[in-house]
């Protein structure tokens, strides 16, 4: 909080320290919410600039960390809605195809896995860690914005329910229900990939 106070007193160089301190986490959250690394870079920078400009509205009832995440999440969601660049796989399309959603995602995210899938029917062959990550990351993008956001804030960033409620400005009970539904949807999407990984 001392840094924030210094910034408010006009010491803009102190803001650099705030950026340095939180940029990694903000960047990763933006990345997982918007789905694109390059966009995440721009969003992160924009979030810090907007947070600076809006610091006058920062009441310090919650931490700067929560504040900057609120800005970043809003920007990421807005960006995603605006650019319409969802690189997701339709649940219906995936299930109507040759394999599960996770397999479809893996094919897209991992050419190696796709080639192997065509040449090798061995169901016991497990997915590697990279493939698992690709499956999970891809499945994350299939969730709707509300569900993906709570998953990112909870399971990636480790916020508690109250903090998530503050960031998203929703009741903690809503956080709880959204998180459960998001996990169920995600679990269905990635279950085959997890199962294969477990079977290794």
């Amino acid at each position, binding site marked *: 909080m001392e840094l924030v106070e210094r910034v408010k007193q006009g010491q803009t160089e102190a803001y650099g320290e705030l950026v340095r301190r939180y940029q990694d986490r903000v*960047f990763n959250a933006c990345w997982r919410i918007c789905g694109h690394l390059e966009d995440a870079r721009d969003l992160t920078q924009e979030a810090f600039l907007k947070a600076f400009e809006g610091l006058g509205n920062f009441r310090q009832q919650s931490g700067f960390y929560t504040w900057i995440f609120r800005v970043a999440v809003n920007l990421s969601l807005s960006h995603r809605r605006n650019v319409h660049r969802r690189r997701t796989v339709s649940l219906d399309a995936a299930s109507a195809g040759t394999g599960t959603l996770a397999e479809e995602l893996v094919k897209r995210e991992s050419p190696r896995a796709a080639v192997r899938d065509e040449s090798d029917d061995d169901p016991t062959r497990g997915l590697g860690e990279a493939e698992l990550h690709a499956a999970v990351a891809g499945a994350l993008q299939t969730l709707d914005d509300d569900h993906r956001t709570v998953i990112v804030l909870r399971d990636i960033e480790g916020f508690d329910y109250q903090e998530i409620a503050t960031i998203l400005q929703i009741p903690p009970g809503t956080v709880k229900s959204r998180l459960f539904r998001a996990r169920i949807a995600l679990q269905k999407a990635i279950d085959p990939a997890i199962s294969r990984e477990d079977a290794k």
Partner: protein
Amino acid sequence: MGELLSGYIDGELDAREREIIERVLREDESARQLLVDLQRTAQAVASLPRHAAPASILGDTQANLERSALLYDFPEPRAHQTRGRSSWTARLAMAAMVGLVVVTGWWFMAEQNRSSSKSKTELAQREVREAAPISVPTDSRIALERRGDEFAVSDAVGSAGAAVATVEQQLAAGVDPTSFRSQTFAAEPVRLQVTVRDRAEREAVSTRIEAALSSQRLADLASAPGAGEDTTNSVQNFYYRGKAGVNFDAANEDQILVRASPQQIDHLLTKLSEPNQPEEAVALVAGPITVQGVEKSRSVVQLLGDQQQAGLSRSETKRNDGLSGGLLKIVGIDPKLLSSGDKSATEPGVAPVESAAEAAPTDSPKVADDESSVADAEESAKSHRAAAKTKVAVSTATRAAVQPPTPPPLVERRLRAAAESSRESAGKDDQRRGGEETPGASVTVVVQIIEQPKPVETDKPAKSKTDRAKASKGIK
């Protein structure tokens, strides 16, 4: 039950809920399976790799903040603005800023005429005749100047004055505010252009500029003649290396945005002009005035310095798709003006005013709750319309040195209130700018190195308002 299970793995249940869930888990196999599935899912997400943020984020953020500080005078976050500053006050600020464009456009022209008549300089006026940036009746320019001063007072105390509403309506009479709002930057600095003949010369000039701006804090400039001691570490010493087209739309340019005192700019001019640099290769663009050559540029720089000695903290220019208009942004009234007895700058009696409200379109921007103030301002303006115009045919800066008549009590009260309320920030600014011993502050200047000089298009017809608006919005 599922939500409780989800909360259970997150440790978000209270004791009673936890007891219930643990009993269910002991008794229900499906509940145990669901718990495992949820845990695996959460772990899978948590195991996703993380990337370090690109290093450019920090640098770019700082650069943007510095740039903002240079251009907009907000080295602090907007926390220092009046809490909950409403949109109408923001509009007032915008209106006043646009209004001041007019003021300084007029001011520069007046100064130019004055200078020409005295044969001191041969300032080359370009683009003014073919496309004056803002078409405002002469009388209202004068009124705008008056109101511009008063706005500075109002803005300093965080309240809107009647004059601001008048300004806004007057602007609406001759300016399309949206074309200004769509500018990439609301105000742009004085440009200092250096035209080079080839890449080698470009490198040489760049080297000299680097020498003058030897660090990001302008250490070299800070030690230039006339530079205040306390400016070394102040925000005004930041500079921003803009990308081509960032500050101005021309490509193939190197741009450096600097806030520096006139003395420092003069120092920079010296650096730019040596060695063997053709005199005419250096140009300084300040509003509608373009001067070629180091010496002539210095004349303009001197004018900028004169402004600052009158307590005006900075000067900027604004360009609208090739149309130039000077912006003399008054960000505060120097308390010294009060103590020195110079009050003419806010004395309304010398300002003939063309009622802008009459000419303003009905859909022009309005200032809520200020209609009565507008009426008052108009009434006041009309009462002084017969005043001699010659009285104001000098700049605010010049008038600052003239013994003025006593201002009316209202204006005086507002000035004093502004001085009182802004004393803290003024003190901080003074400290930042080297204390009161440093007259004024600085101007913001963009140093441009242009490799491919463009011929001056003297016969270019003025663009239509639509074209300007399109251009300002980046529409090709």
